[in-house]
């Protein structure tokens, strides 16, 4: 009896993945042990790793990476779940509201970055002008070392919460209606229904949102780049932007080493988490 789930289903995807992702990645791991200027390659062992850990902005970069990832992914999960529940209940204008919330996901990151840089300009920006009109002194947003990172995180949440919402909604749609009907017959309150039916059955969707937003947050870089470039000074640098800057500076060996470090850090968080979430999913 042949299995109805043939292994060859993996093949076409595997071809793309192996040739264009795995091979180059393995090659770049080797390059992380070299001094590589794109023109010359010289083997230097683990020097790059030693050097990478001596980077002045690195400690701050590590701390910032975690702050950024947990703030953005936490907010996306909580807000996404709330919005998902709200927008799959029977309210008016549901479709339109969904579209509006999802709209930022569609806009190009570069465009959004530029737009918020302008909107949140401490001196000429409309947001601070509006706050001033209300008699509230506006903060320095992305120019103030204390708030730069959180400002970018806020924009990230603004841009990404629509996607989390959409995944939650798709998850809720997949829950068979019979469960709800049964709960109704039993006279369960809506809060109870949510707690005992929706939440457990949303487990795969929640796992997906948590994993994606956490990975995205840990690797996030494009918005930071578009708004602060890691500044002022090094105050909003995260691991990914440190690595990218090294790459830009032509330290290819060093930046691939940084990428390996980034990969290890992200993996150390994501793999156990993913395993735990999946196990929970299988149990339910």
């Amino acid at each position, binding site marked *: 009896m042949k299995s109805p789930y043939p292994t060859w289903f*993996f093949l076409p995807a595997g071809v793309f993945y192996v040739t264009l992702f795995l091979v180059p990645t393995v090659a770049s791991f080797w390059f992380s042990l070299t001094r590589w200027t794109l023109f010359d390659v010289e083997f230097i062992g683990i020097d790059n790793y030693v050097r990478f850990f001596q980077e002045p902005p690195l400690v701050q970069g590590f701390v910032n990476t975690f702050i950024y990832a947990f703030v953005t992914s936490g907010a996306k999960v909580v807000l996404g779940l709330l919005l998902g529940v709200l927008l799959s209940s029977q309210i008016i204008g549901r479709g339109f509201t969904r579209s509006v919330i999802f709209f930022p996901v*569609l806009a190009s990151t570069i465009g959004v970055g*530029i737009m918020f840089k302008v909107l949140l300009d401490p001196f000429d920006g409309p947001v601070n002008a509006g706050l001033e009109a209300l008699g509230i002194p506006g903060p320095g947003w992305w120019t103030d070392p204390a708030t730069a990172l959180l400002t970018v995180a806020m924009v990230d949440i603004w841009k990404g919460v629509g996607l989390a919402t959409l995944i939650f909604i798709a998850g809720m749609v997949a829950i068979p209606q019979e469960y709800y009907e049964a709960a109704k017959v039993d006279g369960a309150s809506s809060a109870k229904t949510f707690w005992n039916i929706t939440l457990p059955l949303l487990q795969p969707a929640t796992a997906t949102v948590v994993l994606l937003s956490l990975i995205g947050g840990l690797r996030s870089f494009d918005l930071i780049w578009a708004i602060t470039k890691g500044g002022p000074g090094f105050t909003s640098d995260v691991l990914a932007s440190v690595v990218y800057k090294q790459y830009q500076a032509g330290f290819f060996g060093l930046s691939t080493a940084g990428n390996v470090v980034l990969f290890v850090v992200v993996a150390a968080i994501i793999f156990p988490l993913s395993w735990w979430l999946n196990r929970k999913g299988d149990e339910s």
Partner: protein
Amino acid sequence: MRNRVWRWTGGLVALVIAVVIFLVPFVFMVFTAGKTQQEASALQFSWPTEWAFFDNLMTVLSTRDFLIVRAFFNSTVLTIGAVAIMVVLGAMVGYVLQRRRSRWNPLINFFVLAGLIIPPAVVPTIWVLQGLGLFKTLVGLIAVHVAFGLSFCILLFRAFVAGIPRELDEAAIIDGAGPVKLFFRVVFPLLRSVIITVVVVQAVFVFNDFTYALYFLPGDQNATVQLTTYNYTSQAVSAWNLLFMNVLLITIPPLIMYIFFQRQIVAGMTSGAVKG
């Protein structure tokens, strides 16, 4: 009764908040895109004193011999090609991965996550593309996007295949369906809402990506729409009106696509219940 109140108040509150938080910034963009350069440079949130919307539109369209038109064509082909391939292949992997218990699963799961976590290695990827004769071609860029985007698709599909009862598969197998028929005729249609999610998200990602395009598809004749924003960010005098007009233009296709699929999602709401 309580429901009706909730229906209206909840709906209206949600609507107002959503519009203020998510739409107002775009209104600012539209206003700026309609201003003359002089007025736009002040960056006020105000109604343009004179609308130069159409002039700006024409300027943006005709910049560098209508480069943006060609870029739209390139981006469209790229997006459709890459997303179609990765959705089908990703669904196949996610489905088997979820359904079949095998010693290999942990390894495959590792690779899937690795694909999400590891940033692409630019130069070695170019070498591979050159070796295959696909560097500087749209096909090559499509292949790159597929390779980098598969992980996301697999992760989502795996999560949602879990929600489809196995009894369905068993019933189809008893009816004599082979693995291919089982997957494409029975399972794939049931994945509709998640397929739409994946399509929308990945299409947006591919359409909005500019780093891969910059590296793997060099040359102005190959420009994709994201690269056209560069025409305005680097000008001596910041032409905010033209820049925002450009950003608006390149936001339109994903928007249309989303509005189109949004209906589909809502339609899919009722068919979500699987009658086993």
